[in-house]
């Protein structure tokens, strides 16, 4: 496609281009038709089901949507704030854990062991249980100075859980850098720490950009889990409206707000992944 024609296009070539255009048009028509059939069929199936009027009223009520949306939105703001803070904490703590786990010096064995246990335990326990345990367990200790604010506790639980995941992503990135890079760095006189900081990490982290973003998307959604220990974030507010009016529409409102953040993030991940492939 990129080569330039040196002579006037021959008849066969014109013929081929015309055929290609025809094929493109045909493909477009087929794609459009099949979309109409498949999506239209699904829509028709749902819309003609006997329960649809009730479902429409209880899940997609515009009046309920308008009624609940402002409160759900203000709850969502809390989600965003928690997400921002937790995300930064996760990035820092997870990097520390990854570096500790990759360090081979014998003196650091106990720390390495702790880091491994941290990842195994906090990544292995369902996040919802972790939120519950931290949320109700830490205040039960009744120790002075420990937080009792449920938002803080929920944030701590999420940080524990996600630092487990993210540290493994970092580690994968670090380990993917060829050993020769370290050798080269050491041979030019860098210390091991300098080699990690200036040679390995910049390459390793760059490679795991998309999976890191992927975990961001997951974290952004999981912030809703802190609702079980009390804070009125988007999902909790939606549930409150739901229970009050016996109508599920506020849940849809909350879901839309999450999509508003996660879909652009997902596209960003796609784009980063694509760029990586090209390079």
């Amino acid at each position, binding site marked *: 496609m990129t080569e330039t024609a040196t002579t006037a296009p021959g008849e066969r070539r014109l013929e081929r281009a015309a055929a290609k255009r025809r094929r493109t048009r045909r493909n477009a028509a087929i794609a459009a038709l099949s979309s109409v059939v498949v999506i239209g069929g699904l*829509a028709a199936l749902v*819309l003609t089901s006997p329960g649809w009027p*009730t479902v429409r009223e209880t899940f997609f009520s515009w009046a309920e949507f308008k009624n609940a949306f402002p409160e759900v939105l203000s709850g969502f703001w809390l989600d965003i704030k928690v997400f921002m803070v937790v995300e930064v904490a996760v990035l820092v703590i997870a990097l520390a854990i990854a570096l500790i786990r990759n360090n081979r010096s014998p003196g650091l064995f106990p720390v390495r062991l702790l880091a491994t246990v941290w990842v195994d335990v906090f990544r292995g326990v369902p996040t919802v249980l972790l939120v519950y345990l931290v949320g109700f367990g830490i205040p039960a200790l009744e120790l002075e100075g420990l937080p009792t604010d449920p938002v803080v506790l929920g944030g701590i639980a999420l940080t524990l859980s996600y630092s487990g995941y993210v540290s493994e992503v970092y580690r994968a990135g670090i380990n993917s850098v060829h050993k020769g890079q370290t050798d080269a760095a050491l041979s030019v006189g860098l210390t091991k720490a300098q080699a990690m900081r200036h040679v390995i990490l910049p390459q390793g982290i760059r490679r795991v950009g998309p999976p890191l973003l992927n975990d961001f998307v997951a974290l952004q959604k999981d912030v809703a889990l802190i609702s079980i220990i*009390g804070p009125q974030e988007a999902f909790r507010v939606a549930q409150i409206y739901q229970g009050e009016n016996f109508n599920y529409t506020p849940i849809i409102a909350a879901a839309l707000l999450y999509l508003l953040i996660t879909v652009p993030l997902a596209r960003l991940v796609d784009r980063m992944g694509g760029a990586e492939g090209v390079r």
Partner: protein
Amino acid sequence: MRRTSLAILSLCALALVLVVAGCGGTKSSSSSGGSTEAGGETASAADCTPAQMETHTAGTLTVATDKPAYPPYFEDDEPANGEGFESAVAYAIGKQLGYPKAKIEWTVEPFDSSYAPGPKDFDFDVNEISITPTREKAVDFSAPYYAATQAVVALEDSEAAKAKSLADLKDTKIGVQINTTSLSTVDEEIDPSSKPEVFNSSGDVVTALKNGQVEAVVVDLPTALYLTAAQVENATIVGQFGKAEGEEWGALLAKESPLTACVSGAIEALEESGELEKITQRWMSQAADAPQLH
């Protein structure tokens, strides 16, 4: 290039389909809206016999509640033992309609799914559910069988325990259970400076109070009595709210259930005969003693 134009074309097609489908949806729902009107029911006791009632399982009355079932509404998490206020009410309703104890089946129905659209697995649900007009758009309610008020509970040595008025509770960190009317009571009557914490279960509410995560909790008065008597030793009832409107509990039935009139009729009969009063006295007796907060 080609892929983009393909995508755009399909999107256009999709939009078209959705627009068409959306119109169809509106039509069908408005036509069903008309039939909803035919719901003006009054009890005619003659039709309310096990032989005539179209129950979930023929010849049996299936009653639902959530699990765990808490005292004083149920005892030992076992609705079928007839102990506890709502268990007793359910059996009394059954008896009134001609179902002996053996013909009454219990089933577990989480609160959140009790009002979901679609067929129900029960004939009626007793789960301390307050009757409100908005809720009545989604389900049927029987005539009320209890009028509840809300109460504030705090630990004895706390600041909140000293409150003498609703204004004293303004800066208190309050916990409530989700899906109860406690939250709206708190928001309307106290309007606290920090948003109340909203927990999943009454168990979590109790834990939060014990842990000091919240300074006070607001629950139904009978729950408050049970909580202070049996669950948290050093907790005390600070007071109860003045009777808020719409704080009546009814049995929940499927929208337009043919049984609503029968259950309502049974409850009204129990009220007239004084039976309901007796049951209430037995299980919820101390409810009137708490001081009122203004």
